């Protein structure tokens, strides 16, 4: 039986993480390579690096991070943020990432999904979705709309339609982020996650809102997510991956316990 995956997400700007991990001795470490290694040893099932580097000429720093991460961690990791072209995807995969996540660029030009899947295989192509709850309308029948620019720009595209369309174009996985829940630490958007996860045949990673182990239990069981993204709840040392997994295991969620 397949385990549900627990995936820490690291935000990287100009080669440094924007929030360091507070280790037990309360020292902040901002090196994404060391943090990746730390979570690998802690039992993360996968790691996501999100590149929020503002300018594209700083991009080589990120590729260097990817290369150094690939030399020291032997679990899958993906890179997202600012991926616009097939060349961007190729650079990240050649540097050693397993998967590459496309988000805004795919909403603006869906063909990037098809091109990526054809060139590198569907298993490499993760569709990142930023979604906002809106009133149900003829244009947005699911009541969930695609947004970009951190939620500032509404796209007039129905999220459920877009998830199915991305699957059809060849996306191998969806990372589903609720803009409403993101940063609240009040729990994942369960209704949205369940809606998308039961409507597509590819795995769905839930993102946005994790604050406590109970939130992961809800999203992985009630909402049927295949994986859960976590950030601040582990970065600040409030919770550990091992602790979260122990809680999930005790509550009947299949997780990987030995590494």
């Amino acid at each position, binding site marked *: *039986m*397949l*385990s*549900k*995956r627990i995936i820490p997400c690291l935000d990287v700007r100009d080669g440094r993480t924007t929030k360091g991990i507070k280790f037990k001795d309360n020292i902040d470490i901002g090196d994404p390579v060391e943090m990746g290694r730390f979570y*690998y040893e802690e039992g993360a*099932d996968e790691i996501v690096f999100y590149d929020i580097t503002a300018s594209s000429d700083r991009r080589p720093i990120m590729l260097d991070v990817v290369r150094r991460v*690939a*030399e*020291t961690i*032997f*679990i*899958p990791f993906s890179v997202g943020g600012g991926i616009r072209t097939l060349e961007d995807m190729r650079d990240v*995969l*050649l540097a*050693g990432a*397993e998967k590459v996540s496309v988000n805004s660029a795919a909403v603006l030009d869906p063909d990037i999904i098809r091109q990526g899947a054809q060139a*590198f*295989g*569907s*298993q*490499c192509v993760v569709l990142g979705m930023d979604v906002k709850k809106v009133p149900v309308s003829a244009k947005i029948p699911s009541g969930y709309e695609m947004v970009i620019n951190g939620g500032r720009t509404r796209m007039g595209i129905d999220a459920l339609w877009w998830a199915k369309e991305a699957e059809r174009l060849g996306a*191998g*996985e969806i990372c589903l982020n609720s803009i409403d829940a993101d940063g609240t630490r009040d729990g994942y958007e369960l209704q949205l996650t369940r809606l998308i996860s*039961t409507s597509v*045949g*590819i*795995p769905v990673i839930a993102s946005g809102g994790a604050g406590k182990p109970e939130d992961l239990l809800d999203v992985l*069981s009630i909402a*049927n997510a*295949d*994986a859960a993204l976590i950030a601040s709840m582990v970065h600040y040392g409030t919770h550990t991956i091992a602790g979260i997994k122990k809680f999930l295991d005790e509550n009947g969620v299949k997780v*990987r*316990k*030995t*590494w």
Partner: protein
Amino acid sequence: MIAILDYRAGNLTSVQRALQFLNFPCRITCSQEEIRNADRIIFPGVGAAGKSMDDLRELGLDAMLREAIQSGVPILGICVGLQVLFDYSEENDTPCLGILPGKVRLFPRDMKDAKNERLKIPHMGWNRVVFSRRHPVFENVKPESEFYFVHSYYPEAADEADVLGRTEYGIYFSSAVARENLAAVQFHPEKSGPPGLQILKNFCRWNGRSPS
């Protein structure tokens, strides 16, 4: 020197990086001479069976692999590198190498889990391998270890004697197989954390003899 067979399949560098981390010298190559002189061969693979078989034939590596199997040099197949060892794959309706009897089939679309939720395809993530017998390549691996899988087609060995371990995902499939100097896994040991690295290390020290 360990030869990592280059037949334009993806994911070659991750195998190389794992071996470098373990301090085993290796080389990604499609040169017949280098492969012939290698101490052992890793046959990796990500991608479709059809294209993989086309590329193997075009590079003459299908014949090369058969020769290597005869020579007794230890060989490790990974993912599609396991699948094309069988007679046939439903993916692209592909006749494969026929080194091991059996077929590779598409996971059924209507599989459900214990909670009656639909099982996603690809089978992507961490799963166990239940080993039915011992083999030097899988020594010092805890039985509860999990390995990283990503595939939409699954191997079904016809000869029970070739099966070392099975994995459950809706159905049971042969996730680890071995015969003589050949061992192969459906999962990615190079992406399966410490137990995966242990398997690679075991392979790099294996003399190619299977226990009878």
